């Protein structure tokens, strides 16, 4: 299976999702995404940091210096309440959007949408 490029705009959402569990530093976010996507997503590591800075600028994340398990200084990112709201709303949008697109793309020739789940 080849690795899929990440669609524009979805990376932000993935990062927010990653941080919805617990505050993480940059490499932890990368590793979490790789694990979650089962390595099927192609993300350049630097692009992830850019997304993180962007989110921080928008006030959806907040950063704080902390120490890793191996006692190394790392920048930990945490979801703000604005970030949490944003994640919830965007997830709903994304799922709705994906469902709609999927149903159109997989519809039978008669134009009837295929029943969900097929």
């Amino acid at each position, binding site marked *: 299976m080849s690795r899929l490029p990440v669609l524009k705009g979805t990376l932000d959402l993935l990062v927010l999702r990653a941080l919805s569990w617990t505050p993480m530093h940059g*490499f932890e976010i990368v590793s979490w995404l790789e694990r979650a996507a089962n390595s099927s997503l192609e993300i350049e590591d630097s692009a992830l*940091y850019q997304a993180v800075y*962007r989110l921080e600028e928008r006030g959806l994340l907040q950063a704080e210096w902390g120490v890793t398990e191996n006692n190394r200084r790392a*920048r930990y990112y945490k979801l703000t309440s604005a970030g949490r709201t944003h994640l919830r709303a965007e997830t709903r949008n994304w799922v709705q959007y994906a469902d709609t697109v999927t149903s159109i793309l997989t519809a039978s020739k008669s134009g009837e949408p295929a029943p969900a789940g097929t």
Partner: protein
Amino acid sequence: MIRSGVRRAFRLALRRRDRWEREVEDEIKLHLSLRAEQLVAQGATPEEAFREAARRFGPLTESRARLLEAARHRELRMHRTEYIADLRQDVSFAARTLGRQKGWTAITILTLALGIGATTAVFSVVSTLLLSPVPFPHADRIVYVEQQPSQGNSTGIRVTITPSANVVRAWMQTAHSFEAIEGTAFGPRMLKTAGEPSRVMTAEVFPTFAQFAGQRPLRGRMFTAQDILNGGRVVALSESFWRQRFGSDPSVLGKMITLNDTSYMIVGILPAAVQIERRVRPADVFLPLDVQDDKRSMALLGRLRPGVTIEAATKELDSIFARTGQFSSGKLPFKTVITTPAQRVQMRDSLVMLTAAVALVLLIACANVAHLLLARSAARQRELAIRAALGAGRWRLLRQLLTESLMLAFLGSACGIFLGWVGLHGLIAMRPTWYDEIQLAHLNALTLWVAIGLAALSGIVFGLIGTVQSARYSAHDTLKNSATSVSASGRHHRGRATLVVSEMALSAMLLVGATLLIRSMANLQNADLGFDPKGLYAVRLPTEPGHDTMPAARSAFMTEFVSRLRQLPGVRSAAIASVAPGSRSFSIGRLEIDGETAPPAGTTLFVDVNQVEPGFFATMGIPLVQGTTFTDTSASARQVIINAGFARKHWGDESALGHRVRIAQNELSGKDEHPANSEPWLTIVGVAHDAATTGPGSESTAPVLYTASGATASPTVMVRTSGDAKALAPITGLLHTMGIRNAPTIDGTEEFLSRALSGPRFIMLVLSIFTGLALALAGVGLYGVMAYTVTQQTREIGIRVALGASGSRIARSVLWRGTWLAVLGAAVGLVSANWATKMIESQLHGVTRSDPLSFVSGALVLILVAIAACVVPTRRALAVDPMTAIRAD
């Protein structure tokens, strides 16, 4: 998003550039090493692992640059967001704090507004009239050129001579001091094109004038030197006249208009900026002025070359003038006088004086605001200390106080600008009847900026004062002590007392000035004029063609007219005179008295001369103190009546009757037909009471000669009516029956006198208003200090009452302290006033600038205001209940 407080607590906010750059680098490094470790754990060799880590991260240089840019953007944005949040917090906090103390806030804003408003109103006038009086390019080098008699002008009024064309030509051709010299002549003409004849203002100017004004014709062309050679029957219209009168019709070019019976062709339209001077009634029509016409004389304005001083230019013009004619003994009859536009502004000295006065009002307002803020910051010691203890930084507190002050300043200046606008219209409404230029004043950008700048400055300065005061006490000390004992510190108090004393001193200066002007005004109003202005009118007949050339015919006409005039009901008497009240006519020469040594040759004097009918004195109500009126009006009788002031000055208690005087004309008067010393002697037959016909306050010892011969050639008749001007209404009809179509001008002497007084009255009123403002502000200031003192001393007063002090004793101590501050202020103010009244010295009549009555009454008023300001604090002190006061914190 991090709340500002949290962010500050962790010192995250203000990071320097290198710091966040390093953080980005650290983050990249950590990432790469963690990735490599992960790969090594999966079995890669360290070299392979690092290569793979770098590959997955992306092209390093490029990515790093992108990340740094993203981080920079993030820092900037977050910083700004936080700043705005802080600002919003400060503003809403300030609004709440100010709102809680409505009375205090209102007084502070009102004080600022009054100071700024008064300043704005006066400065609007000054900036329009004094700072930018002419609309020309290089206005700083524009000057007006006139000539004045070199000597002998003892009249006290400014006598100027418009140079004649030959002199102007000499100056234009040879003077190096000027880039350009422009001649002008301004005056009304009757426009007789289309419909009823109407009066339009015309300006005769050189063809170069549009260029001098830095403008091009809107349409058509400016007239040229060639036009003048062709007879000069061309005009250019002003833009506003063209728009109003001709509805902006472009086809007027080439059409003819008739002005005073002469037709002119319209050749161009000049933009509104082309005007000789800033005037309320600007020129409607421009006509060519011919500098080659030696019969003309003209007003001059010019543009000096850069770097040329007025003195140098004056000297050069004088020396050129000396070469234009033969003047005996090298004495020039006229000297050149060059003035700047600002110097020509009417009431310039008064405007400067009012500016100084308004500056004092502003100072008082500022002092008031300063101690209002001081009082407040003292009362807020505890609040500030608690906030400091809770972790607010000093910078944060400073910002908070500054926000409050700036907010006050902003509100104050907004109200101030409004008051300024009201005040400016008030000034315009109160203006002297002849001072229409003041209408041109408006709130301009400069004025607004000055007002806003003042407000912002006062906000910052007073904000700082408050903070410095609060910084003087550490949070610990303030909290440990009770608010009362801390705030009552002596130093604090002395500062505020000093402010009040200064306010009182400034008010005292204004009070003395206003009192002097009021007394001077009263003197003018009650002055003995020496004649009776009630029901007295000057009727001036229109000049009719033919009368100029035939004096005998006019004389006969006038005699007939006056005899018919006397028949009118309501007319008690009438007499022809060459000079009516309000105007003067001079004979220029050497005044000689028979039997006394004549003044040296070349001495000139301006002698008032009035040719009158014998009935003139009775009509005017001027009593004759010696002798009688003319008994023989023939030219050969050579009778003269002089004024009492001159007679007294010259003959003392002796009778002047029978003495002979003459005015020896010399070349300087320009009359050559009577060579010096051949002038006939005039015999004094009467001495008339001094009559201040040019308005009260005029010099009475200067010689006035009333002569009888030739009186009937004058077109002016003085008429005494039993009532008002209605009695004179039939005159127009009377003239009609005598063949004169145009209406005469009728001037009431009372109106003229009130017009003459309207200037001093205006200045007196404005200064009185400012003084009232100053007093009110100073009173509020003193009240504030006294109320504060009483509050601070509540406990002390309570103890004294408990120890048996009587109420009157307590009241005395409060009143005494307030009065003492006022007395101190008055003392300082009177000493300063003694110097400052120099500014109004020239405007005083019948009272000297060190008039003791004005000084004493000024001080008394000040002390009365001080006592009034202490009434409420005193009552509050009397109401102190010893038990509550002693137990209180």
